[in-house]
């Protein structure tokens, strides 16, 4: 037995090294064909690969956990996941946000058993060890008896802490002491995320607690799709055209292609589809005016981003964003995409039944819960200073479009489990995911030189970037 354990440990040590080798002798590098742009379908189920991902990705990168407006007051907390670890996200008396492992260092019990609430002291229900919102150890019952022992000082007995960084109110954390700031991970894409999340002085807020559900699929099925899969819109989301949500009913697929037009941008596995504003204008508002002849200012007034519903907010946006960013917003605003590895973004420009423009911001995380399961978390956001009655409309439209029952996203969540089921088969696992529809770098005149820019029809370029980043972390690091 001892020998067997020894071998298993050696195998696992091999997996942790650069260019790791799976126990059947396959180097992880061989799951990719970088020349033909193929990825083995086995990646969508392999339990061994999953374990490596937890080590090499989910304990190394910055992960999105929520939004600062979910815990506005001192002592407010929510419990979230980083990889498969539960963490407490809490605000201390000074207003600072901390992320601590929700595991009591005494006997391994979850310290918080509720998912949200308010507490200045988190007391473990098992033996009563107590911790502050910043994770530090307060003490254990029977203080005089030193029930926490006298081997470690109290400073050593706090909850394990992650590093925290806020980005326009979004709470990110990482276990990696050596990771650079979040900006490094976002790379050139920060330019575009600033447009999405940093438009107003008041910033954004959540419109309620997140929806959560379980999808029996590997986390990467949703992960890679989020990185600019514009192509699936035509087929998987065909019903949206049929019911008129993406424009008028047409008979041929060619007529739907405008929705795939725009500018895809990608850097370091982060990607966004900037969808042609002229297309959105024609399909959603369709007033007959020639959008293409309008100036940037005129366009922003006609088709403002979700939540920018009055002159005050529009003025703030113009103050906060650079002319280059405003140009992007006017020509092809970022709408659908991801943040590597497991954030999915959907900023909707949707028509309301009365013909006006409804809209909403949907932010997901894809939280792995095993090789064939993930939790799909959905937050609905809005500008804090958007009038309350408009927020109510935005909330309802966004819930009807994205998340659990969203008319668009319910088709996605039903598709992903099939891919993981397919990846379990002896032959299925030998198939490949193909990213061979290449548009190539193509930056339109006037478009800022930020990230890799792929203008035109949405092809596989940006999604391939997602896999290159995955490859970089799994094989090279």
């Amino acid at each position, binding site marked *: 037995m001892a020998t067997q354990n020894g071998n298993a440990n050696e195998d696992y040590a091999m997996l942790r090294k650069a260019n790791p080798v799976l126990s059947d002798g396959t180097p992880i590098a061989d799951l990719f064909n970088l020349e033909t742009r193929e990825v083995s379908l086995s990646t969508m189920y392999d339990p061994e690969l999953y374990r490596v991902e937890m080590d090499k990705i989910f304990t190394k990168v910055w992960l999105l956990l929520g939004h600062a407006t979910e815990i506005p007051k001192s002592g407010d907390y929510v419990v979230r996941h980083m990889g498969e670890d539960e963490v407490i996200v809490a605000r201390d008396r000074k207003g600072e946000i901390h992320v601590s492992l929700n595991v009591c260092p005494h006997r391994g019990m979850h310290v918080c058993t509720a*998912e949200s609430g308010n507490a200045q002291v988190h007391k473990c229900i098992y033996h009563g060890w107590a911790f502050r919102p910043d994770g530090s150890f307060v003490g254990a019952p029977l203080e005089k008896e030193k029930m926490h022992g006298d081997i470690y000082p109290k400073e050593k007995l706090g909850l394990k802490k992650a590093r925290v960084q806020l980005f326009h109110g979004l709470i990110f954390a990482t276990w990696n002491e050596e990771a650079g700031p979040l900006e490094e991970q976002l790379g050139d894409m920060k330019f575009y995320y600033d447009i999405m999340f940093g438009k107003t002085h008041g910033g954004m807020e959540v419109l309620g*607690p997140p929806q959560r559900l379980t999808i029996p*699929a590997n986390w990467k099925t949703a992960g890679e799709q989020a990185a600019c899969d514009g192509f699936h819109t035509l087929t998987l989301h065909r*019903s949206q055209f049929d019911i008129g949500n993406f424009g008028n009913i047409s008979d041929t697929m060619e007529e739907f292609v405008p929705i795939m037009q725009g500018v895809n941008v990608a850097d370091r596995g982060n990607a966004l589809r900037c969808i042609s504003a002229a297309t959105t204008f024609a399909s959603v508002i369709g007033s007959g005016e020639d959008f293409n002849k309008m100036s940037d200012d005129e366009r922003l007034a006609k088709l403002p981003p979700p939540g920018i519903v009055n002159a005050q907010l529009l003025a703030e946006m113009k103050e906060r964003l650079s002319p280059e960013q405003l140009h992007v917003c006017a020509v092809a605003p970022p709408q659908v995409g991801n943040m590597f590895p497991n954030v999915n973004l959907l900023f909707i420009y949707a028509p309301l039944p009365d013909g006006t423009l409804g809209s909403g911001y949907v932010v997901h995380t894809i939280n792995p819960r095993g090789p064939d399961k993930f939790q799909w978390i959905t937050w609905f956001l809005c500008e804090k200073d958007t009038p309350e009655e408009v927020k109510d409309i935005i909330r309802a439209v966004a819930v*009807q479009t994205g998340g659990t029952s969203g*008319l668009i996203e319910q*088709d996605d969540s039903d598709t*992903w489990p099939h891919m993981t089921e397919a990846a379990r088969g002896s032959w299925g696992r030998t198939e490949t995911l193909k990213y061979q529809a290449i548009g190539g770098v193509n930056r339109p005149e006037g478009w800022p030189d930020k990230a890799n820019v792929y203008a035109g029809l949405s092809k596989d370029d940006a999604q391939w970037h997602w896999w290159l980043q995955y490859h970089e972390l799994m094989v090279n690091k």
Partner: protein
Amino acid sequence: MSNTAEKIAPFEIPPISLPKPTDSITHYQIQQFLHLDAYLLDHHLLDQWLNILAPDLRYFVPVRQTKERKDRDSEFSTKLGHMDDNFQSIALRVHRLVNTGTAWSEDPASRVRRFVSNVSVWETDVTGEYDVISYLLLTRNRFYQEDYTLLSAERHDRVRRKGETFELVRREVRMDQSVLGMPNLAIFL
């Protein structure tokens, strides 16, 4: 033991706070209405199902969070739902499912059965409108799955008399899961 025996408890037992339910004939009629509702949905008669929805319908499935017992009143979000619909948006969902042939989240359709029980009916301040609570146990089976995904919930409905029958004015579905165990709500509850 004699029925005059004293009850001994470590605290004072409060009286039952539920109001008196309605008469048995109305109760029976509303129970039949809920059975009709379940039958139409289970048998994919979604277009016909629209007949029993009121034009001023509000259909809400609130998001739920696990809270400490002292915070239990705030378990259900009053604002954010897994579903948040009115008649018009429900009709659009039905149109997509029934008329497009491309509503992939329910094509092939799930095999769903809605078991409705524990029906309670109360009169309201509005003549002809009733508050109805029912328990829902829903089984959903899909594709190759050998097992069922289950959803249990308490439905808080407002039901209005309409001629010989009723229409649904409000439905709030309070699920027993904080993390929904199925990949979407492409079905009605």
